[in-house]
Every structure is written in structure tokens, then in C-alpha cells.
């Protein structure tokens, strides 16, 4: 069924009995052209673009849980393209352009809202760094405006401008940034892939990757063996376990990142605000909850929940930046599992095994990358060559030291990002 205003009207008048399932629930076939391990945002987007851009529709997405149940539903839904380094810059720019046409492309309301992002700064040096980053964004063809203190105040009157430690000097405003509804992104790509013939197979955990003479031949799963000449590992959050089945060790350490949401409030925050010095960022969801988070807990974890010291730190940062948040009550918190790479940038590449592809290392930037990552990974699988927007996400950059993308300038070893 195609979604349209007419369809909504018709269903509304006839008791909403005509809406069907958004995708099929097929049994796995014995063989496919391409198997994608992982039915998260990136895996679903990869399958969608394989079918749409390359006409490869004999594809299975194998998901050990259910669609939308992993990290794609455990983030804070921010979409942006405000990176400074070559490699990241063109990739996130590419992804943002795909976001801008995504709803029409998928015929699905992903509630993409370009409400803008303001990255605050609190010193002259940080202003210079923000100006440099803004110029890099403009050179990439994206947008950036350097706001002074009064410019920020006009948009966000409720911040604590005269905080003794972090007085607000201004902010870098990225108007095309914003948010989207994360579940709908998963559902939209799932529906789009399914309609083009991709089999989405849920409750199907991959338990082995079959390799013969340096070539991948298929996978073993909890629902039987499935053959394929091409297999893509797109399982950020569990990348290490999946790659281990192919005998690979990855430059990845999994960390926990917590997020929080308050009770639903009337509209009070119409943009995304980041307070880098306090490791804090916040937006308001369309349902009214203030959605916010901070930095990693900073220890390896797969628990999908964090510890209280980091929760306390995030609350302190929230109170430091916008004291009005003290009136709101926190409804719930959760954790996402981050594939942390040594330089803080992702990996999209072939591997030393023919036909085996790797997409991992999204650190805390995975959600905004979903369309871009799927698009370029599909290109890599279909053509064997990296897409022009993702030439620098090489797996071997850590071994060679060439092409490291350390966006924060903190180094390219584990536990620095």
C-alpha cells in the first residue's frame, strides 16, 4: 500500500481496517545473492539501496532480534553534517542530502525535522575552532553560521549565559541539522527493502560464516544454513562477535552511551543544542520529552544500560547549561552499545576474505549516517569499489597509519574518543 493523504482519509472514514503489515515475514531461502548480517538501520538501508540503486533484489537481511530493536532504536535521533575532516566531511554531507529526500523516496514519514543544531562555545579559542569547522562545512557545500552570544540568546533565552566556568560566547549554527524519528527510519527502510523483494528474516541469529579457500560461501544460522557469494557484516554493537566468526579481530572496543528523556512537556526547545564542554546535548522530541545525553561511561560494556556516576554527570551538565531543566522529571534512561574505533571514525570496507564486507565502528555517530552508510555500502557490495563519498573508511588505516580520521584531535588509540 502506498501512503498518501487520500489513503489516510479513506482509512479514517472506514475504521482503519485496511492497513496491512508493512513487510512480509518470509522463511529463509536456501541461497541468496547477498546476505546482510544485521537488521539495524545500516543493514536495512544497505539492502534498500542494493535493490533500488543496483537492482540486486535477491537479498536477505538476517536479524537476530526484531527490526528496530537494536541501536537504531536506542539513540537520540540527531541528524547533522558538521564534520571537519576530509573523509568524514563528504560522507556526512552525502548522508544529509539523502536524508533530505528520504521521506519522498521511501514514501514513509520518518518525521525528519531540520530544526537546526547549535554547538555552543565558551572561549576565544573554541570560537576560532568553531569558525574553522564552519568554514570546512561551507567548503563541503553544507551550511554553517557563526552566532555571537546575542545571536544564541535570541534563539535560546533560557541558557545560563553568565555561568562562572562556561559563559556562553556563541555557537555554530547548522540549520540543516535536526532530528528524525528513529523507529520510523528502521521501519521505512524495512518496508522499502521488502517492497523491492528483499527478505527480512527476524529471529535469525548468524552462528557461523562459511569460508572456503579464502572465499565466503554462506552463513550458518539458528534457522539453518544459507548460501551466498557475498556477505556483509553490518552489526555495529556486535561487530566483534560477528567478525570473530570469520576469524577476524577488529580495531573495535564496545562502550556504553547513556541517554535520558523527561516527561512530555509543552514546546520549549525548537533546535538541538550541544554543550561540548559539559559533554551534554539536548533536543525536544515531537512528543514533548526532552531527549538528552552525555559522554560514554568509558569502560567496555554490552549491558545496554549504564552506571549512576555518568547519569549524575549528565544531570549536572544539564543544570549547568539550562537550569530550567531542574523543573522537569526524568522519565527513563537507556544505553546504546557503541562500536568505538581507535580514531573515532567508522569502517566501510572489503576484507581479506573474498565476498565478505565490513561496516562497523560507528562510535556515537551511527544514526545520522544510516542513509549514507547504506548507500555507500550497497555501492561497495555491488561494484567492489568504494563510493566516492566513502573512499577513506579503510580498515587498514590503523595498521598503516595512513588516513586516520581523528576528528577530535585526541589521538588514534582506544579509549580516547
Amino acid at each position, binding site marked *: 500500500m502506498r501512503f498518501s493523504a487520500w489513503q489516510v482519509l479513506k482509512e479514517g472514514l472506514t475504521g482503519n481496517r485496511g492497513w496491512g503489515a508493512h513487510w512480509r515475514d518470509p522463511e529463509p531461502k536456501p541461497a541468496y545473492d547477498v546476505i546482510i548480517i544485521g537488521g539495524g538501520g545500516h543493514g536495512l538501508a544497505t539492502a534498500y539501496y542494493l535493490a533500488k540503486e543496483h537492482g540486486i533484489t535477491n537479498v536477505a537481511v538476517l536479524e537476530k532480534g526484531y527490526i528496530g530493536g537494536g541501536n537504531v532504536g536506542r539513540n537520540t535521533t540527531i541528524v547533522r553534517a558538521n564534520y571537519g575532516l576530509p573523509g568524514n566531511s563528504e560522507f556526512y554531507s552525502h548522508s544529509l542530502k539523502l536524508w533530505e529526500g528520504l521521506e519522498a523516496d521511501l514514501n514513509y514519514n520518518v518525521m525528519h525535522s531540520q530544526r537546526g543544531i547549535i554547538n555552543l562555545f565558551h572561549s576565544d579559542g573554541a570560537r576560532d575552532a568553531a569558525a574553522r569547522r564552519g568554514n570546512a562545512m561551507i567548503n563541503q557545500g553544507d551550511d554553517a553560521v557563526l552566532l555571537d552570544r546575542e545571536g544564541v540568546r535570541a534563539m535560546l533565552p533560557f541558557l545560563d549565559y553568565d555561568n562562572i566556568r562556561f559563559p556562553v560566547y556563541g555557537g555554530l549554527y547548522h540549520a540543516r541539522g535536526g532530528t528524525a524519528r528513529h523507529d520510523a527510519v528502521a521501519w521505512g527502510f524495512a518496508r522499502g527493502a521488502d517492497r523491492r523483494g528483499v527478505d527480512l528474516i527476524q529471529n535469525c541469529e548468524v552462528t557461523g560464516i562459511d569460508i572456503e579457500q579464502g572465499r565466503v560461501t554462506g552463513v550458518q544460522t539458528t534457522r539453518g544454513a544459507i548460501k551466498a557469494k557475498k556477505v556483509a557484516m553490518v552489526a555495529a554493537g*556486535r561487530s*566483534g*562477535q560477528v567478525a*570473530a566468526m570469520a576469524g577476524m*579481530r*577488529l*580495531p*573495535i*572496543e*564496545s562502550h556504553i552511551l547513556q541517554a535520558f528523556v523527561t516527561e512530555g512537556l509543552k514546546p520549549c526547545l525548537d533546535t538541538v543544542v550541544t554543550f561540548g564542554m559539559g559533554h551534554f546535548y539536548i533536543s525536544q522530541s515531537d512528543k514533548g520529552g526532552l531527549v538528552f545525553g552525555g559522554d560514554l561511561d*568509558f*569502560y*567496555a*560494556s*554490552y*549491558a545496554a544500560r549504564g*552506571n549512576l*556516576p555518568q547519569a549524575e554527570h549528565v544531570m549536572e551538565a544539564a543544570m549547568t547549561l539550562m537550569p530550567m531543566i531542574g523543573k522537569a522529571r526524568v522519565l527513563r534512561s537507556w544505553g546504546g552499545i557503541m562500536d568505538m574505533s*581507535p580514531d573515532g571514525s567508522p569502517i566501510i570496507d572489503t576484507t581479506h576474505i573474498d565476498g565478505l564486507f565490513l561496516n562497523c565502528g560507528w562510535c556515537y555517530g551511527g544514526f545520522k549516517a544510516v542513509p549514507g552508510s547504506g548507500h555507500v555500502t550497497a555501492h561497495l557490495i555491488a561494484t567492489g569499489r568504494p563510493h566516492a563519498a566513502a573512499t577513506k573508511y579503510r580498515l587498514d588505516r*590503523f*595498521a598503516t597509519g595512513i588516513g586516520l580520521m581523528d576528528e577530535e584531535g585526541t589521538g588514534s*588509540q*582506544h*579509549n580516547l574518543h
Partner: protein
Amino acid sequence: MRITCPYCGTRDLREFSYRGAASDLERPDAEAPPEEWHAYLHLRDNPAGVTRDLWYHEMGCASWLVVTRNTVTHEILACDLARDVALKAREAKR
């Protein structure tokens, strides 16, 4: 998460800072091939389950500790002085 330091007893997580996998103690020789250094610096087993990692008791006795921990449940299983672990490994090598 509370960590039981061999010197200080069970202490709050905030007193400790995390360094990474305990494989950091197994530093290759200076003359080791680049592949070995790459594996040491970058590649990780990254287990979902029991792992061993290095923590520094910064706000306590300033000891480096090897903590055996479950990454899925956050259960702490053991905590040893990194010095003892490293010395034992050196003995075993001989």
C-alpha cells in the same frame, strides 16, 4: 558498579579510571614486527561476557589493577594488582 581494590576494599566506581583491555600489559618487544604492534595497539577481542581490563585507582591508592568483569551484566568477578599479574606473566615466560 563497585570495584574491590586489593588495598582499599570495595570502592565507588568514580574513584577509578578505565584504561582498556588487560592485553595492554603484554607489550611486544621493540624489535617485534609491525603486525604485532598493530595487534597490540588496535585489535581487540572485545568479548561480550567475561573480560579482563586495566583500571587505575586514581582517587585511592594509585594502583593499577586488572579487573575481571562481565561486560554484559557489569558483575565484577576479581580484582588483582596489575604488578602481580605482569610479574606472574614474566615468570611464566622464563
